[in-house]
C-alpha cells in the first residue's frame, strides 16, 4: 500500500502565453502521508490555491506530475478526472460554494448521487455526514438560511461524502469569525481521527498551529516544510 496520499513532482504552472508569462508555481515538490494534516501557508499570490487546484485535479500543471493514492492525476482525461474528484478528493472552498437552490441535505446528497448511491442509502448517509459536522436539524435549510459557519460545515460534509482519501481546503476559515473558526479546527481534528488526509491552504495561524506539518510557500516555490 502506498504510504503517500499525495505526491507532486516538479510542478510548474504558468498563465498567459507568448512573451507575457506569469509563473504561479516554479517547480514545487510535495509529499503528504496518508492521514496527515498539512497546512500550506504563505502570502497572497504565492501559489497556494493554484497548488490545491492542481492536487485536486481541477487545474492541470504546465509541467510536472501529481499522484494521489498512487494514481497519476496528470495523465487522466476529463472523464477520469471527474471520477477521480468524485471518489478520491473532497474540496472545501473559502466561499463555501454550495448550490443555492438545494437544501443542506441535497447539497451533500448531490455528490453521493453522482457516484450512483441509491435514494434511501443516500439520504441516510447525507444525514449522517451532516450530523458529523454538527448540522443535524438543519438538513432542510437552503444556504441562504444558514450562517457562514453553518454553510462551511455543510461544505465540509459535502467534501466528506464518498469518503475521499484526501480533503483539500482552501482558506476554510477565511470567512468565519474566530469562534466559528476554532470550532472548525476541532472538527477537522475529529474527522482526521478517522484516517482522512487534509491539505489546508490558510493564512490563519490557529489553523496552522493545529496541523501536523506546515509547508511555507513564497513566489511559487516551497521554501520550508
Amino acid at each position: 500500500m502506498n504510504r503517500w496520499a499525495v505526491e507532486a513532482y516538479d510542478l510548474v504552472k504558468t498563465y498567459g502565453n507568448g512573451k507575457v508569462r506569469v509563473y504561479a508555481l516554479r517547480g514545487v515538490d510535495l509529499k503528504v502521508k496518508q492521514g496527515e494534516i498539512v497546512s500550506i501557508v504563505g502570502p497572497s499570490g504565492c501559489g497556494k490555491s493554484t497548488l490545491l487546484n492542481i492536487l485536486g485535479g481541477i487545474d492541470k500543471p504546465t509541467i510536472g506530475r501529481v499522484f494521489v493514492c498512487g494514481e497519476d492525476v496528470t495523465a487522466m482525461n476529463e472523464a477520469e478526472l471527474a471520477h477521480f474528484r468524485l471518489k478520491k478528493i473532497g474540496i472545501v472552498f473559502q466561499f463555501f460554494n454550495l448550490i443555492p437552490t438545494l437544501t443542506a441535505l441535497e447539497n451533500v446528497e448531490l455528490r453521493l448521487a453522482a457516484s450512483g448511491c441509491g435514494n434511501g442509502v443516500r439520504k441516510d448517509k447525507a444525514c449522517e455526514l451532516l450530523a458529523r459536522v454538527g448540522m443535524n436539524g438543519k438538513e432542510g435549510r437552503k444556504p441562504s438560511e444558514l450562517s457562514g459557519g453553518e454553510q462551511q460545515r455543510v461544505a465540509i460534509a459535502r467534501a466528506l461524502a464518498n469518503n475521499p482519501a484526501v480533503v483539500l481546503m482552501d482558506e476554510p476559515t477565511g470567512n468565519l469569525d474566530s469562534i466559528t473558526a476554532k470550532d472548525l479546527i476541532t472538527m477537522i481534528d475529529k474527522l482526521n481521527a478517522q484516517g482522512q488526509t487534509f491539505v489546508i491552504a490558510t493564512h490563519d495561524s490557529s489553523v496552522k498551529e493545529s496541523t501536523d506539518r506546515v509547508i511555507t510557500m513564497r513566489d511559487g516555490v516551497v521554501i520550508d516544510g
Partner: protein
Amino acid sequence: MKGSHKEKEGRTFEVIKSSLTLPYSLELSMALRNLVRRKIRSILATFGVVIGITTMVTLSAVSNGMSSQMVGWVRSFMGSDLVVTHTDSETFSIQENIPEDLVKRISSIDGVTSLTAELDNAATVGEVRTLVRGIRPVEELRGLTLVEGVNLLESPYDMLVGVDLKRECSLRVGDTVKISSPHSAKEFRVVGVFQSQSSLLDRAVIIRLETAQELFRAKNLVSLILVDVREPKMINEIKRQIEGLTGGVKVIRQDAIIKTIQQGKDLLETFLLSVSSISLIIAGVGIMNTMFMSMVERKREIGILKAIGLSRTQIVKIFLLESILIGVFGGLIGVLLGSIFSKAIEYVSLNYLGTSLFVSLNWGILSFGFILALLCASVFGLYPSWRAASLSPMEALRYE
C-alpha cells in the same frame, strides 16, 4: 507502471457508470427550482413554445377537419361516376341549384344506370344550425350506413339524423323535431340514425327531396345529380352528352375531384407545416437564449458541480432537463390552447358565420404537438447544455 490493464479497464467502467447515474428526482428538483428562480425568463421561453404548439395544433386540426370533410363528401358519393352541379357551384356550395327536369333527361342517355338527386341547404334543427339534405330516391343512401331505425319510406316528414347530431341534440328514434328554414318551419319525426365518413354529414339531417324543396322553396330544383355509368370507358362520352343537354351545369368526374382535393390537401399541409415550423424555430431560439443566459449566470455553479466530481454527462442532463421542462410545460399548455382554439373556430364558424367548418382533433395531432414541443426543447437545449458542461472547472470557478 501503476496498475494492470485489467485494473484500468475496471476503472474505465466505473467512470462510465458513475458518469451516467444521477437520480432524476434530484436533477428534476434542481431543474424545476432553477426555472422557478428565473420565473419571468422561464415563462417567456415557455410562452414561445406555447405559441408554436398552439399554432401547430389549431392549424392541423382545421386542415385535418377540412380535408376529412372534403374526402367525406367525395366518399359519400362513392359509386357515382359523375357529379352534375351548377356552373358557379364551388366545392358543393349550397346556394346554387340546377333544374330538376335534368334528372329525367340524363336518365334517358344510353349507358346511365342510376341517378340520385340531392338538394342541400342550411337550416335550424331544433336549436342547432346544420345541413339539411333532401334526396331521391330515398333508397339510395350513398356512402351512408343506417345504424338505427328505418329509412325514409313512410311519411314525407320523416327524417334521418347523423350520429353526431343525434348525440349533440340528445335525439332518439321516434322524437319529433322542428326544422326551420328562412322560408318555413315543419315538424319532423326521427325515424333513423346514420353514420357517414364525413364529419359534416354526421351532423346533418336527411329528408325526402320533395319535402326539402318545399322547406327551402326550391320547387323543381336540385343541388346535385349523381350519375352512375355502366362502363368506365363511357364516362367521358356521357359527361360530354350531359354538358350538351343544357347550359349552366358542370359535370365532374369523381376521380378528378379526388385528385384535386388530394392536391389541395397536400398544398395546405405543406403551408401549415411551414408556418408551424417557423413558429417552433422561433420558440427554439427563445429556449436556446434562455439556456445560454442561464449558463452564463450559473458559470460558478457549473464550476462547483465539476469540482465536486459531476461528469460532463451529468451536467448536460441537469441543464437539458431544464429545457425539456420548458418543452413539457409549453407543449401541454400549447396542446390545451390549440384544442380550445380549434373548437372555438368550429363553434364560431357554425353558429355565427353560417359556414360549416369542422375541425378534426385527435390524439395523433395532440401527441404530435406535445412530442414536437419536447423535441424542439431538447434540440435547442442541447447545445447550451453541452457548452455548460464543457466549461473547464477552473474557468467556471473563477467567474464572478
